[in-house]
């Protein structure tokens, strides 16, 4: 009789343990769900593509757009009676300030933008150590995106660290 009662208690104990395991399992399942989804990634890609397109198309002086100015800078030629490389830097400063604003602040370590002509950086703004720092962050996702002005004129790159 006593052994029968002990068996009942054991079953009760077992049910409680199983329930606790199930609750912990459900908690871990939902708590470990990824926060960064494909939606955010696709939105960032879209933003980068549209940003390069809008920047290079924008009229900078007379009827010349930024792409023309960068092409002239790569050949060290003048444009609109000005030094094309100085005009490129001024225009990029103004455009990026409007487009990215505070995100370019190196202290925030969020964004890095640079322009390369013949593998030489002719313009850079933002946090230049973004790649190493972002990859060392537990949830940091390093997202670089480049656009090439052909043929082999220049490469514009924007790198973001999405947390």
């Amino acid at each position, binding site marked *: 009789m006593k052994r029968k*009662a002990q068996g009942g*208690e054991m079953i*009760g104990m077992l*049910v*409680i343990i199983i*329930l*606790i395991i*199930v*609750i912990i399992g*459900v*908690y871990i399942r*939902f*708590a470990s*769900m990824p926060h960064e*989804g494909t*939606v*955010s990634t*696709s*939105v960032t890609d*879209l*933003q980068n593509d*549209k*940003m390069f*397109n*809008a*920047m290079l*198309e*924008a*009229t900078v002086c007379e*009827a010349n*757009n930024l792409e023309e100015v960068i092409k002239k800078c790569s050949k060290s030629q003048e444009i609109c009676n000005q030094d094309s490389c100085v005009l490129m830097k001024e225009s990029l400063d*103004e*455009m990026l300030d*409007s*487009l990215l604003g505070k995100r370019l602040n190196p202290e925030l370590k969020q964004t890095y933008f640079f322009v390369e002509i013949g593998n030489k950086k002719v313009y850079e703004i933002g946090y230049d150590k973004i790649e190493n720092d972002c990859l060392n962050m537990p949830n940091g996702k390093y997202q670089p995106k480049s656009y090439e002005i052909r043929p082999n004129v220049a490469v514009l790159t924007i790198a973001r660290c999405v947390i």
Partner: protein
Amino acid sequence: MKKKGMIGMMETFMIIFVIFILIGFGMYFFYKFSVSSTITEAQETCELSSYEKLLTTLDLPGLQCSFKASPKDCVDTAKLRAFIDTKAAENVGTQACTMKIVFKQIYPQPGMRVNDTECTPDKMRSPEFPESCGKWTLKVPKEELTKNKAARVSSTPVSLYYPHIKQYGIGQLEITTYTYT
């Protein structure tokens, strides 16, 4: 014997009580997580669907720049104004998500006093344009649809074309989605 039976009964009730408490905790956590994940999913779906719908709309000949019958990846501001004035913009977006859609001009930068001024046909014809105004409002939801809802702003840069002066600028397409917190 009677006393033993009573103790047995009490033990059974205690175990049932503990089991109910544990089931209650389980249900609470499940409800909490499923609600929060549903809200997040709804917000992301709203955000993505708003982008998808908007991109589809931007591909329409009614808004997109075109040169010699070939479309270009930019927004013609004259077409945009006409699109707003014909009330066709009211159908942009989804019925399920309450959205506000605004095109803001950011380069060349409009003056501080006019950066919140709507680009009406008169403003767009003025000699100071594009510095004379700062935005084109495509869609504004009714106030009652935004009450007690959290606003989430998503934005993407766009190339803007000013046909009157044959120049290009940079704009920011801002989509504000309103969802329950």
